């Protein structure tokens, strides 16, 4: 498989606070890769650096052979990276349909098939397309955030905590959908707290601790690693 995203020696800091240090990893085409780790470990910052919302201090981000770490976010979206950010960040006073349209902002016109596909993935969104997004329930908002990100027909989808605040049943639905999205050919890099479930369907994972990658491997390796459990529940 060919490497779609390569990150080398990435360093990010907010003011004097170093958030990421020497992060190196890659994502291969067609994979689901999960970043796991406790709060404050730097998972979200990694995604923000890839989509251009924060400028790295050092290091390279290469997407499909092109260096993107100096580009504006809107240019990165055009290259085919879509980011469903932490906390969903949907446009609450716009309708569901308008949110989806914004997802397709970089497209010349809205692809009916993509829309249809997203409505198939999340039938709830079709039912509520005229409703204001802010009035949706938490799960529906998450669906919208993912659906919106898919509207730009990305090659690489960045998902930040898609199960945050969702009930187990809803989490399952979201995760099933993530699998479907991958099966349709979109590469996925996700941050997930629900590590066990995520690793179940992911190909590979990286464990972050305080801005550094401390462990990496295939899902199976990580799932059986004591270190992952420790990352959350601590050493006994």
């Amino acid at each position: 498989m060919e490497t779609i995203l390569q990150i080398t020696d990435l360093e990010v800091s907010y003011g004097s606070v170093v958030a990421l240090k020497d992060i190196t990893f890659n994502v291969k085409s067609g994979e689901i890769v999960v970043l796991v780790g406790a709060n404050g470990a730097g998972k979200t910052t990694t995604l923000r650096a890839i989509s251009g919302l924060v400028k790295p201090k050092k290091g390279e981000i290469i997407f499909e052979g092109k260096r993107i770490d100096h580009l504006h976010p809107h240019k990165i979206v055009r290259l085919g990276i879509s980011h469903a950010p932490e906390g969903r960040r949907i446009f609450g006073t716009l309708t569901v349909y308008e949110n989806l349209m914004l997802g397709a902002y970089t497209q010349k016109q809205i692809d009916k098939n993509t829309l249809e596909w997203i409505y198939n993935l999340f039938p709830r969104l079709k039912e509520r397309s005229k409703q204001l997004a802010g009035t949706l329930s938490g799960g529906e908002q998450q669906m919208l955030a993912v659906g919106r990100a898919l509207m730009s027909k990305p090659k690489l989808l960045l998902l930040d905590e898609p199960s945050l605040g969702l009930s187990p049943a809803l989490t399952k639905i979201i995760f099933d959908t993530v699998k479907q999205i991958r099966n349709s050919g979109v590469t996925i890099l996700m941050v997930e707290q629900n590590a066990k479930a995520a690793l179940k369907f992911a190909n590979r994972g990286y464990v972050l601790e305080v801005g550094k990658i401390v462990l990496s491997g295939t899902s199976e390796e990580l799932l059986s690693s004591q270190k992952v459990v420790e990352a959350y529940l601590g050493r006994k």
Partner: protein
Amino acid sequence: MEIFLQQIVNGLAIGSIYALVAIGYTMVYGVMKLINFAHGDLVALAAYVGLTVLMQAFGMHLSNLWAVILMFTVTAMFISLFGIILERLAYRPLRKAPRLSAVVSALGASLAIENGIMLIWGPNIKVFPSNIFPSTRWHISGVVINSTQIAILLLSIILMIALYIFINRTKIGTAIRASAIDQDAAKLMGINVNGIIIAIFALGSFLGSIGGLFIGIYYRELYFQMGWIYGLNAFIAAIIGGIGNIPGAMLGGMLLGIFNVLIAGYVSNTWSEALTFALLIIILIIKPTGILGERVAEKV
């Protein structure tokens, strides 16, 4: 009753001008959280530029209609461009600075434009020719309405409907609304937020320039400091409607126009400004974010 209706008619005419100008304040505030104190002076500048273009057009022996069309197009284009340049020079360098620094920059821009007008066109008042619009008057059961008022009201409403459609039905319009809600999320949609800010200044200045030309056509008197009065009123209108909210600005403008005439006509002419502001303060105390504004809770 006739008197009351007459007041309402007059209030709507001035209110629609306030509304056009208020939209410029509200759009800039919505995305940049900046009170653009120079907007009112841009409106005044538009009236002066319009008058100059009109006189040139008459000089070229164009018919009234063509002269007016030329005036509107040239002025609107010039002022929109001016708005874009203003943003680039006076506001963009301050986007990461403390908010009040940008406010002072806006006050400086206001002072510079106002006195720039005086340097170019002189301190004397300038007067729009009275014969550009046919001034027919209709008496409808005691209420006098003239054609200029109707033209302004109609054109304003058409412009506002067009803006409403643009903002709500087009891609760029939706992008503008999205940028006002959450700039980072907008960037992630592939929206060039810098481009949106430029668009907002162009659009706000465009509507302001139409407002300025209407002032010129309706009242016909221009003086270099007039921007302050219209700017302040339009700004109040934007606040009443809920600053950042475009339909709010339209509503606020119309309401303020009507408040103004009703207070001046029925309560007290000499206290009209004070009462308008007292009303504004009461609205703010009761509904701190204006009539259509939304309360945004801070996350702790």
